[in-house]
């Protein structure tokens, strides 16, 4: 329905209701196919990966949601699931894996450490993988229970089903690295890497 409302008048003619309905139909078909056959690329670095395995195994079984095949090659994956903290040494690796995934692609940041750095507010750890790759769904928890990850996957389904094939902006290579090799402006990275809550009382020493 959204597209019917948004269809603009073209050179004085009335909005073409049939074209809009057709686009909606195509979107529905494509998005349902994509959402219900998401192939995850697991990037497990820590204890979140154990919960990820539990989610993949028979009790919780995310194959029920179409993630039947885990793609251990980024070239055949749709969604990158970063499960666990990401050290700086792995930053170029996850960036390259993300770059190697074909469009359309999505990223789930699983757990507190992948999303914000978590308790690892130190010299070795990336403070949130969104400074490296764009993230669609953040799953909080330390580590999140399998239900949490499944909820994140369902949220991603919802997001995918709201996309439109005819909106090219959505599927542009999102924010490629700039000439410095950064995804975000340096000020933004500094800002989102700062600790919040009580830990602002910790100062950068010496």
């Amino acid at each position, binding site marked *: 329905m959204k597209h019917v409302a948004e269809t603009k008048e073209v050179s004085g003619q009335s909005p073409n209701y049939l074209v809009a309905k057709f686009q909606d139909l195509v979107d529905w078909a494509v998005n349902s196919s994509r959402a219900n056959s998401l192939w995850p690329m697991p990037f497990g670095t820590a204890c979140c990966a154990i919960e990820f395995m539990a989610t993949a195994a028979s009790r919780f079984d995310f194959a029920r949601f179409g993630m039947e095949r885990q793609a251990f090659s980024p070239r055949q994956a749709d969604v990158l699931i970063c499960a666990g903290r990401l050290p*700086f*040494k792995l*930053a*170029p*690796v996850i*960036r*390259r894996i993300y770059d190697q995934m074909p469009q359309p692609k999505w990223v789930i940041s699983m757990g507190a450490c992948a999303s914000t750095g978590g308790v690892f*507010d*130190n*010299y*070795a750890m*990336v*403070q949130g993988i969104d*400074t*490296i790759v764009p993230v669609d769904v953040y799953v909080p928890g330390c580590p999140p229970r399998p239900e949490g990850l499944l909820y994140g996957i369902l949220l991603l389904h919802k997001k995918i089903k709201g996309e439109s094939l005819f909106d090219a902006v959505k599927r542009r290579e999102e924010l490629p*690295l700039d000439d*410095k*090799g*950064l995804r975000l402006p*340096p*000020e933004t*990275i*500094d800002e989102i*890497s*700062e600790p919040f809550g009580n830990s602002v009382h*910790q100062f*950068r*020493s*010496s």
Partner: protein
Amino acid sequence: MTASSPVPGALRSEIARDGATIVFVARDRLLEAMTWLKETPGEEFDYLVDVTAVEFRDRERPLEVVYFLRSLTRRADIRIKVELSTSDELAVDSVYHLWRGADWLEREVFDMFGITFRGHPDLRRILMWETYAEGYPLRKSFPLRGRFSRAEQVRQALNVNPEANYSLEELSIAEAAGDLPDDMRDRLRRGERGVIPEPPQ
């Protein structure tokens, strides 16, 4: 090493605590003492369990390099410590030529503490990437979050090429198999683990 020490001037002090023997060794005589410990019959510390280092909160206290030795035949342990004054050059002799296992252990101590091991064949960073420029993370003078801003850390990390240290052949397992020695390739083919060869003398 008793009072009539076979390696003169090596023994600094000796303590026995919690069933462990800790021996402080003079820095200059470390290699001789280690050679004696490894090769003398009745000592035979043939296994280097770990090499690590300690820096204390008291800045006056010297750094300690700690060697954990074990004799597999005698089932005995010993701990060797070398004190390095912070005002002095942080360097000791490498024990790589006695125990090959010291290779990566000493690289790790170098990476984390900045202690140079003289005579080590390949002393470079092992945990942090080789172009890491912020210093030595386990030193007390190192700030917990590093010296650079987060943006700068991300920039430097992203500009590292993870494959830069490997040749194309090394990146390909199939091609690297051709570089293995014949006997090793043969054993791999037969699915046999084989024996660990004697190190070349």
